[in-house]
């Protein structure tokens, strides 16, 4: 099935990208919990069956130069339409197509101004968990920072 490219409203785009990034990092349990909090939600039909596949991950020579193919990563994706509502998409690393579909439903709900605030609120715990995990990595890594000291030679 052909899905026409969406002309996303420009001013909402960064916010939608941020919520899609959050959805991509949420576990299936977290996504289902968010959907439950929002229930009842309109029925969703698949624009395309949820599926898993690959994305070639690219990097740059020297970190900042010409690009090269580093290796592939598995990716799950889903596309849905809500009854009387928007089209939603889920793209995430891994092969959890149920999570991709739940993310697509939440993406579609988010585009509805009536739901947007409550979707953001329902995803609050995910945002909190991710910030906490990244903060812990930073703090634990910071504890392994080398503090050099210079040995003074007593020659004069």
């Amino acid at each position, binding site marked *: 099935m052909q899905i026409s490219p969406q002309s996303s409203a420009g001013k909402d785009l960064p916010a939608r990208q941020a919520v899609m990034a959050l959805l991509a990092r949420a576990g299936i349990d977290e996504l289902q919990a968010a959907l439950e909090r929002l229930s009842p939600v309109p029925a969703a039909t698949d624009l395309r069956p949820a599926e*898993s*596949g690959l*994305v070639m991950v690219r990097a740059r020579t*020297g970190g900042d130069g*010409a690009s090269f193919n*580093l*290796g592939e990563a598995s990716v799950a994706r889903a596309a849905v339409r809500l009854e009387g509502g928007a089209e939603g*998409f889920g793209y995430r*690393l*891994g092969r959890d197509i149920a999570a991709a579909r739940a993310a697509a439903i939440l993406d579609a709900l988010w585009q509805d101004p009536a739901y947007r605030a409550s979707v953001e609120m329902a995803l609050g715990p995910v945002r909190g968990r991710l910030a906490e995990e990244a903060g812990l990595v930073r703090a634990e890594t910071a504890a392994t920072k080398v503090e050099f000291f210079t040995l003074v030679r007593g020659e004069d």
Partner: protein
Amino acid sequence: MYVAAKGGERAIRNAHALLAKRRRGNRALPALTLDQIAQQLSLAVDRVMAEGSLYDVELASLSVKQARGDLIEAIFLIRAFRTTLPRFGASQPVDTAAMLVRRRVSATYKDLPGGQLLGPTFDYTHRLLDTSLVGDIGAPTAEIGGAEPADMPRVTDLLGEEGLIESAPADDGAEPFDITRAPVTFPVDRPTRLQTLARGDEGYLLALGYSTQRGYARSHPFVGEIRVGDVEVKLFVEELGFEVSLGTVQVTECQMVNQFKGSAEVPPQFTRGYGLVFGQSERKAMAMALVERALRWKELGEEPGAPAQDEEFVLSHCDNVQATGFVEHLKLPHYVDFQAELDLVRRMRAEHEAELKEAAE
């Protein structure tokens, strides 16, 4: 020569059943879970993802379990699996400068911005077997440190600001060659080398990298920087018309700073070798950077002659799935080939004896 042969079906079936039994081992012990493998044998899982050239922790853990810990067999399983999936596209190049850093060290600058962060390293351990690990050590805790500096510029950027190191080749916007999509013909460009090396066998690259240190294409390497951490993967999704963040993958990056080179156009400056690998694998990233630098001899006007500089040799033999396939196929039935050779040797011997006899007469 391969010929169809019948027979052995029952033996094969039973051998596979026996394999399953041996893999499980003593049934009085609990079976390993994939989470246990992913969490407690994570560097084995990382190696499988790097050389299997597929980032998927769960699948790599499964392959390690299925292969009974034989990592090349596990890599083979991953490579076979990837052929069953469609490709959705190629990501935007990951930005290693924006990494969530888990470890970062430099051998060239003591006081580099952002500091030296040892992270979870084997370095400075005494390599004494730790008998406390014989049992369950409970839940070790880690210290929490002070505030993390926001910015961690790459060492090569610091040197680059002063023009003391060559800059990375500019991105001309061209699609990089993909060795999984098209046959490789030599000579190849640098992106092709990097892709090939990134999935190359760690042991093979380690030996070649080591050879450059021992004088076979010496390049006076310094570890400008090694960083390990999480980078974001972003995909431009055609059907949406914008970029979507898919999550993060862990990578190890090595910036090798090598001996200088100047010419009529360029004043003397350091040169670079680059290593980037999925997962936490400094040994592989460092070896890759050494070999990558050695392969650049022509571009840098150096003398050829060392094994690590031979592009076709290095790249054609670094894939352990291809290598193991060709080496291990020797144990499969070659009855007909061998019969033909046996006949040939018998005939040669008969002729040889006849010649000796003739000479004696």
